[in-house]
């Protein structure tokens, strides 16, 4: 690919980044200046320690559970594995408020598990696992799947024990991919806002929560900027580490097809890890769905019929908006993501740049939007731009490794047989990377449904979506509001699952 063509392909996403990420971030930092004096305050030092310590703990735990599970799913025939991998995207789309309610229903003061973790750091870490364990499982699954099964088999036939073959062949080859997932969990947890905001109380707030309070509630922008600067100092090296790891993942399309059934011992261990994952990732969701059916006197459909018969706004309106924003974002994110990935396939710099939206403080972006685009704030294009900004990297993340894995020889062969570059792209490259693209599209759709962007821009009543409907219900007291919020949240999960089934095709090959 020529330089000029590469630049042309990368341009749209780069323009979006410049306008809606770099400029707002710089504007926020410039507005109040950065008052580093705040960092001498023991209170903020303890925040710092908790934010990055908690993120590290979350990442380590996610690895301890997620990696063995992914290994089992990739190496053995497990019934329903592809459904599980697809369903594991559900936590990703869950609005934070719903996740918090679900976790409280499980491990709150009157939780079903009879284990009260409220007001402890454990509930925040569990929350991080709820959102991120799926990521580790899916990324690790992809990493293990890329290790050609012949390699391990050869080691075995040369006399290595199963454990030795795994430790000396499979693990080293998959390691970068596994570690990449862990670093990503660290990054997401370190920047998470909603969950520590709701569950951490004031004792376990993260830096991002403090940024929100300082910038948008207390009006102390320069102190908020100091915290944003600290975040950048930590997240940038982590991001670089992630990229190094992701790039050193071995080539090879996910060819490994599990056909063996696992021995009993392995099965038991797998079952334990699976059980934990199911509990953490789906327990809260099941709890919310159950709450939508439980009234004061047992089972009831009152909340569901309340939601269905509401006319202000009608349910169809919420559904339609959710789908509309999802599809709009999906189209834009896939178009930008494909173009950018083609350009970035041979460029480290572009690769790094594509991840930026995932590691920059969303709250500081929101403030930057206010300062830069006050007139645009309540306009649809800005809302969609914010969604696209956050979901395009997910498409790029999925697509890039697959693109890099397409064997050069195959492309050269097609060329020598007379195919034009366009034909090579359409007939050879595209079919090979399609599963990855579908996976990335599913993630992008998930991001929109989960509405990461909603906190960034202002909302308008005519844009109300399912997750805004949930928040609206929860802003008024009363049992019916709580029950109907749970019903709307359940509906959102159903919609998301349907979306994944359509897009992801069950391969689960999302990196």
């Amino acid at each position: 690919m020529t330089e000029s063509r590469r630049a042309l392909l990368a341009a749209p996403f780069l323009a979006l980044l410049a306008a809606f990420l770099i400029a707002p971030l710089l504007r926020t930092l410039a507005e109040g200046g950065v008052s580093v004096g705040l960092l001498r305050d023991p209170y903020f030092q303890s925040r710092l320690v908790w934010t990055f310590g908690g993120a590290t703990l979350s990442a380590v735990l996610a690895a301890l559970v997620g990696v063995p599970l992914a290994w089992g799913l990739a190496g053995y025939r497990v019934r329903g594995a592809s459904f599980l991998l697809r369903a594991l995207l559900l936590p990703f789309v869950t609005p934070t408020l719903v996740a918090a309610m679900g976790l409280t229903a499980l491990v709150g003061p009157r939780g079903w598990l009879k284990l009260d973790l409220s007001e402890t750091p454990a509930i925040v870490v569990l929350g991080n696992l709820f959102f991120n364990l799926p990521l580790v499982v899916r990324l690790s699954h992809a990493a293990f799947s890329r290790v050609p099964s012949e390699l391990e088999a050869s080691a075995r036939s040369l006399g290595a024990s199963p454990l030795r073959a795994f430790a000396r062949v499979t693990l080293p080859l998959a390691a970068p991919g596994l570690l990449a997932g862990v670093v990503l969990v660290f990054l997401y947890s370190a920047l998470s806002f909603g969950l520590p905001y709701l569950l951490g109380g004031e004792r376990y707030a993260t830096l991002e929560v403090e940024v929100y309070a300082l910038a948008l509630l207390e009006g102390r922008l320069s102190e908020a900027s100091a915290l944003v600067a600290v975040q950048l100092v930590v997240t940038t090296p982590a991001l670089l580490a992630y990229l190094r790891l992701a790039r050193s993942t071995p080539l090879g399309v996910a060819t490994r097809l599990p056909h063996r059934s696992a021995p009993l011992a392995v099965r038991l261990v797998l079952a334990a890890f699976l059980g934990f994952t199911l509990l953490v990732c789906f327990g809260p969701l099941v709890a919310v769905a159950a709450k939508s059916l439980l009234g004061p006197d047992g089972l009831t459909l009152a909340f569901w019929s309340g939601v269905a018969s509401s006319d202000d706004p009608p349910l169809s309106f919420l559904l339609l908006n959710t789908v509309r924003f999802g599809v709009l974002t999906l189209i834009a994110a896939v178009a930008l993501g494909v173009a950018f990935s083609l350009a970035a396939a041979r460029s480290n710099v572009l690769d790094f740049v594509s991840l930026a939206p995932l590691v920059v403080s969303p709250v500081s972006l929101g403030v930057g939007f206010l300062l830069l685009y006050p007139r645009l704030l309540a306009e649809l294009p800005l809302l969609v731009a914010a969604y696209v900004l956050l979901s395009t990297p997910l498409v790029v993340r999925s697509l890039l490794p697959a693109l890099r894995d397409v064997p050069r020889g195959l492309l050269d062969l097609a060329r020598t047989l007379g195919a034009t570059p366009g034909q090579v792209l359409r007939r050879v490259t595209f079919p090979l990377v399609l599963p990855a693209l579908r996976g990335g599209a599913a993630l992008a759709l998930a991001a929109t449904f989960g509405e990461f962007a909603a906190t960034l821009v202002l909302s308008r009543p005519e844009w109300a979506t399912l997750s805004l409907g949930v928040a609206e219900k929860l802003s008024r007291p009363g049992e019916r509001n709580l029950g109907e919020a749970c019903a709307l949240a359940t509906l959102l999960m159903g919609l998301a699952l349907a979306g994944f089934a359509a897009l992801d095709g069950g391969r689960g090959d999302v990196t």
Partner: protein
Amino acid sequence: MLKWLMLMGALASTASAATLTVVTHDSFDLDKALVAKFEREHDAKVRFVKAGDAGAMLSRLILTKNAPIGDVVFGLDNSLLPRAREAGILEPYKSSALANVPAKLHLDPSGLLTTVDYGYVALNYDKAWFEKKKLPLPKTLEDLATARYENLVVVQNPATSSPGLAFLLATVRHFGEDRALKWWSDMRAGGMKITRGWNDAYYTDFTRNGGKYPIVLSYASSPAAEVFYATKKLGDSPTANLLLPGSSFLQLEGVGVLKGTAHRELARAFVDFLLSPAVQADIPTRMWVYPARSGLKLADVYRFAQEPRDATSNVNGAASLVDRFTRTVMRAGR
């Protein structure tokens, strides 16, 4: 042909109609038919923009004051008015409709904010919980701070939530600033939970909804809302107000014209509109606050709400108070 002309006419008129942008907090809700009527009468479009909860909304308005994001703001209250005044984001307008609002509810003599509704921030308690434990209710704030009531209260942080600030102001009015901060520190040492916002306190920490604190800082109208939103007809509310002397705050919520509006007349008309009898009658069971206009009949369910007699609406020194609160209560000892 006639149809065609009418269609063109309709399109032309929508194009020429002015759009009034009303910035509101997230809990704003108003009957659509009423808004449509306003639009017809003034040949205008009304666009609502939700900007977070009231505190976050004010910050956003201050950040954008050089290029205002709207023409009118609804939802700033007496506790936020000093900050809004200092930042200079509002322009005065004295609505003639204020004649129907009792003088004690007026927000600002110069007309920066016009009172639309009022409500009381008050402690609520879970009736079933207290009956089950056979624990008598506390009588005073001092009483509440004794060992007997340890670990029973959840309130919101004054630095991040408007009911939290309201409660702090009420305690300061009652105790004086030093003793009030001491009371908060004692309460906190005795296990009072301080959350960031209303909905996490109410929906995750209050015993009614699965939490472990049977006393929650909410609104005096919340018990009425509990009855209104119950799944079956209730003869009584499951929650009630705990009106300890010096614990309630009178929150006056208003509408103001944003400085720099291009639609001043329309903005002013909207202020008057919010004080019109039809809108005022719609407010109580939508936003769970009392209409500012006197002489309106409230829905029957409001018999489960009370109007505390000693509630203060005084907000002097709120900004420095919050700073002091954050330093001495929230960040102390850690």
